[in-house]
């Protein structure tokens, strides 16, 4: 059986998006700092730190050296509701930031390997302003996060965002150290139940994949779904998942073998 990975989970909080917007109004245009990771995005991606390594509001980098600890920045003092909201988190907080993806901007598919349950560090997203034209794909699945909701996202999985709407997308992004309180909020971790290599390796499963491939070649919607990731692992999970939904029984190993075979065939295409 394929591994169940908790890639995203809506936590049982509902925050007041009006109050969050009021806090945003306390931020001056000059407070926004362009995101350091220039390679990942196109357009405008910027942020304001409310808590950061060293306590500087212009320090957007979410990791820190051991000798520098996280501290509130002066801007947090202006944001009364965020201060209240943070007291509800019974865990050690690392960076807390407003992150803004301006209209028309995109962050290309990438992975943040240290974020996620395995890394012991969780990133929570609380949307403040967003729009229906925001495309946020995590592990090849589209997420729809609404203002005021609080989401755990496993960002060690491939993800990309594109703001195709007419308004900016601003999230409050909180990095936490994983503890028992947080663990209890999350659904039971099934990701440890790893895939057994010997499982249902019946001979027909690669044929099932062949049949599914033919189905996809005649189904524009499935094709579009399958193009939402260029990450090989995400693609395989998505392929196996979509196949199951439609009753095709094949596994990740079949998909991996098919990809390898096609790659080989492509390299050898001129040798007849």
């Amino acid at each position, binding site marked *: 059986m394929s591994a169940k990975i908790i890639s995203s989970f809506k936590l049982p909080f509902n925050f007041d998006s009006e109050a969050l917007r009021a806090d945003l109004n306390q931020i001056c245009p000059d407070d926004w700092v362009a995101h350091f990771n220039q390679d990942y995005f196109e357009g405008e991606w910027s942020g304001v730190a409310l808590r950061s390594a060293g306590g500087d509001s212009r320090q957007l980098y979410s990791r820190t050296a051991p000798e520098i600890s996280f501290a509130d920045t002066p801007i947090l003092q202006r944001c009364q509701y965020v201060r209240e909201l943070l007291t509800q988190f019974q865990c050690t907080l690392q960076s807390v930031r407003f992150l803004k993806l301006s209209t028309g901007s995109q962050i290309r598919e990438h992975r943040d390997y240290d974020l996620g349950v395995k890394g012991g560090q969780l990133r929570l997203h609380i949307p403040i302003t967003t729009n229906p034209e925001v495309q946020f794909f995590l592990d090849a699945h589209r997420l729809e996060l609404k203002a005021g909701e609080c989401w755990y996202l496993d960002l060690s999985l491939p993800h990309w965002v594109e703001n195709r709407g007419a308004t900016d997308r601003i999230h409050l992004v909180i990095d936490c150290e994983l503890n028992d309180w947080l663990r209890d909020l999350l659904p039971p971790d099934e990701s440890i139940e790893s895939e057994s290599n010997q499982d249902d390796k019946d001979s027909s499963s690669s044929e099932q994949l062949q049949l599914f491939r*033919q189905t996809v*070649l005649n189904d524009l919607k499935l094709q579009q779904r399958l193009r939402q990731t*260029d990450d090989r692992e995400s693609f395989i999970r998505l392929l196996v998942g979509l196949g199951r939904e439609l009753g095709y029984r094949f596994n990740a190993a079949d998909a991996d073998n098919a990809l390898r075979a096609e*790659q080989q065939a*492509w390299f050898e295409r001129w040798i007849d």
Partner: protein
Amino acid sequence: MDRLTNVTQLEGWVPARFYWREGKPIVDWCYLGRQSFEAAFFEQTIGKCMTRPFNLLFRQQTPIEVLEEWHQIRPGLKPTGFIFHMSRCGSTLASQMLTAIPTNVVISEARPIDSTLRAQFTSTETTDDQRITWLRWMVSALGQRWLGAERHFFIKFDAWNTLDLPLIRQAFPEVPWIFLYRDPVEVLVSHMNNRGAHMIPGVLSPNLFGMDFQTAFSLPPEDYCTKVLASICTAAFEYCRYGGRLVNYRQLPDVVPEALLKYFNLRCSDDEIARVRAVAKRDAKDPSAIFQNDSQKKRDKATGAIRAAADKWLYPVFENLEAARQEQPAIT
């Protein structure tokens, strides 16, 4: 096979390969989406697409006739101009200069076009009429408005496709074309340093250039390469009286903005001309380097064998091309 139930499903797909299976011509299609052919060669754009897992697993495979159906509903852009060349003579610079105008589709040395043109070598029963028809369909499938606003469509052929000029002209009698060539010794030095596909007997059949395999393998490489180039240049010389313009490498890069755009009937804004000129400031195959005429450097590297072969087989036709070029009406 015959997986495709509705031809409109080919929206956004590009023919990536033409080949024979069980005696039938087949086209492999790769999903391209909204993307332009910015890379110097068609194969680079396709190669990049093929790194995506979706494209590896999902390629439409259709009989060649599907190209016709596709041509009926999506004829695409009519070709604006063709570039033929003897290889290693600035043709990539010329095509990249045309690529600099965002409303141009420039398809450079596309394998599916070459495979269509050389179909009679893979299946000897292929007639010229079939090749003409297939070429029209293939060109039409490549000349789509990939981004939406494209207006002009250029094809740079492989050097050896020049031998098929008469057939290509039959398929597209109205499309203006140029043939680019360069001093024989300079071209030969480049090939002896790193030989192109047509310069290795067996990668491309020597029959294409009027030689049999035995002759091809018995010749020293300098001689074989020179004879290949001579056959390409002779084809261009013999055909240029029926139209087309000859362009010497020495005229690059200025000839493109100053004459070729006009010859191809392109009306360009000052901004577009500036973009075209900017390309000339870098090396077409290595954008980080600055383009510079390296004639002298190439000549200095010429061996005795290169000079002898060039004098014997290539300079005579080169002189013919030069004379014919000077007789042609100025294209400014």
